[in-house]
């Protein structure tokens, strides 16, 4: 039996399994500075916010897979020394899906916006981008690519375009500086990069509809993040870059119109043409 046949059709189930095991490894073995009660608290807030906003905005219920992914992402990336910051970020993240919309599509990746707002508005939030260690990150890449090979709906052109551009820029910098090549491998063994590549920038609900638009979007994020990191010495450059590029999605959609993405099981049929949705075509 091909591996794809035994895996669930909705890639979100795979994403949840992946993120949950990443979180368990981080808290259990890697000593992440995350108190055990924080992920459940974030999850609870996310689900309550989703439920409340669905009722308030009279939106059709869309299930709880997405808030679960947002909660896991926030639990993995957000660090805080105050108990309320996690739930606050979760509430902001989920609410943004209902409030910040352009032409029926939400503007920001919820996890990304939750992180950015928490870091900008509270004096208690930060990200620890390099807490995975070498082996942890290696396992993470292995698992992420494994899933992408095994399950076609896990593949994303945005992820690959971003990763390609990012590795190319990093390699070019190392070549230019004459720095040791080992530093490329070192820079890629950041767990945050895996999460960003496969779970944040790839979010099909917030990326442009047309494939060309998505590649353009991914390359812009990589380019901006590279400039912020190495030109301006910003920390967490990937997170800031995505947040800054996201508002361009409606513009790209206007210039390159295409069918809207629906998670499997949604009302619209998946498209099979050249501008097919992000995770329904092999990248």
């Amino acid at each position, binding site marked *: 039996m091909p591996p794809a046949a035994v895996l669930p059709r909705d890639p979100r189930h795979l994403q949840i399994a992946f993120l949950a095991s990443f979180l368990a490894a981080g808290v259990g073995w890697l*000593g992440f*500075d995350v108190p055990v009660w924080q992920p459940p608290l974030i999850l609870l807030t996310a689900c309550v916010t989703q439920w409340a906003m669905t009722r308030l905005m009279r939106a059709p219920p869309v299930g709880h897979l997405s808030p679960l992914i947002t909660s896991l992402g926030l639990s993995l990336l957000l*660090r*805080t*020394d105050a108990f309320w910051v996690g739930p606050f970020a979760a509430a902001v993240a989920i609410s943004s899906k209902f409030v910040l919309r352009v032409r029926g599509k939400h503007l920001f990746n919820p996890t990304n916006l939750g992180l950015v707002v928490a870091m900008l508005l*509270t*004096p*208690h*939030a*930060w990200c*620890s*981008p*390099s*807490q*995975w*260690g*070498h*082996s942890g990150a290696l396992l993470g890449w292995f698992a992420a690519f494994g899933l992408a090979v095994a399950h076609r709906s896990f593949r994303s052109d945005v992820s690959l375009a971003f990763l390609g551009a990012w590795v190319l820029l990093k390699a070019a910098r190392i070549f*230019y*500086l*004459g*720095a*040791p090549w*080992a*530093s490329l*491998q*070192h*820079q890629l063994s*950041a767990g945050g990069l895996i999460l960003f590549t496969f779970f944040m920038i790839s979010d099909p609900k917030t990326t442009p509809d047309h494939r060309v638009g998505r590649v353009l979007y991914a390359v812009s994020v990589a380019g901006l993040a590279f400039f912020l990191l190495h030109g*301006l*010495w910003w*920390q967490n450059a990937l997170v800031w870059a995505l947040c800054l590029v996201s508002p361009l999605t409606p513009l790209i959609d206007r210039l390159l119109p295409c069918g809207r993405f629906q998670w499997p099981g949604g009302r619209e049929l998946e498209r099979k043409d050249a501008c097919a949705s992000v995770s329904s075509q092999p990248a």
Partner: protein
Amino acid sequence: MRFRLLAASLTAGWVSLAAPAAEAFCGFYVGKADTSLFNEASQVVLVRDGERTVVTMSNDYKGALTDFALVVPVPVVLKREQLHVGERKYIERLDAYSAPRLVEYFDEDPCAERMVVLQESLPAAVPAGAGMDAVRRKSLGVTVEAQYTVGEYDILILSAKESEGLETWLRESGYKIPPKAAKALAPYIKQDMKFFVAKVNLKVQKATGFNYLRPLQMAYESKKFMLPIRLGMANARGPQDLVIYAMTRQGRVESSNYRTVKVPSDMDIPVFVKDEFKQFYPALFEKAHEREEKRALFTEYVWDMGWCDPCAADPLSPEELRNLGVFWLDEQNPNGMGGGSQVVLTRLHARYDGEHFPEDLVFQVTNDRQNFQARYVLRHAFKGPLECEAGQRYLTELDKRHQREAETLANLTGWELGTITKKMGDDAPGKKTGGSKPQEPWYKRLWK
């Protein structure tokens, strides 16, 4: 609460006991004579607020002073007023204040009434070449941007167009350059960094009356919050230890490009470690370093400078802090709060080598203000007569506790359990239960 803090004045110097002799840290030594040059453990104080940075570099340089010369990459051309020669005693104070510590507790008489309460209430954890002519210099692409004498140091600030030229210039100016220097210098030149070259001015040095080199301090503004460790690896023979004291207004400092982990802390260990702390902590550090695949930085201390609990040494006075470069103490506290919420100290300990640390250390200031200290607890057993029932229960518990302490120590340091129990003497597990009778193996009671 009866406890006593051992003034375990562990200076960073002992770290080198476990590490092979290292040669340099943020830069490399470029001695003019072929003597063996080494410094044991480097200490750097980083004061950072916004883009303002004050760096104090201290080294335990042991060679002849005539041979001392140091090259450090710096982000900007430094003016004379941005350089200062500090005093070593302040770094020693900082070290003593933040050093890993032992804490002692004494068990009370279990037959006295408050026994149980006391046992429960024992806090398990506190929360945690200037001489060269200009034409030659120009042909090599090296520019002397500035030249000063600061204290006992003669300082040159160089900029260079290409690494080969800089290497040749240093060599022709009489500096002894390690073989792979050009390769190590290249990335800094490409990033438009400048080079700070310091030598000892022997006349001034004699006049100071010190028989050691005082720390060099530089104050500058730069977006870059980093320490250039790669250059020092050019002539290093093995892994090098570096202790970084980072002071900020905002919170804890961590590396943004290496894993930063807290050193194992808050453990009960056998009391004999009191006499062997200088072996214990390096062994623990070595084990933790191995566990992290030699690729991590360790946090040994994070505390608001206004207080400590328990204190290994008194917090530094505003005067001492100012000498170390904390420049904001005179400013109005925006919170309007008194007390010591203005400086958060993070003590980081790195053991690095070329293979496991392929790039310079980059740091970020986090908003984390949670306190942490490397703290190990010694609990002394009650030695008096135990004639009540509670006393017998205490002995049984005590024996279990000693067993756990021995296992914890073995786990932390990698020392043999057998050796540990031998060193525990009367405290060795099995000696307390049932008076002095050793415990019978379980199977002896099986078919009785």
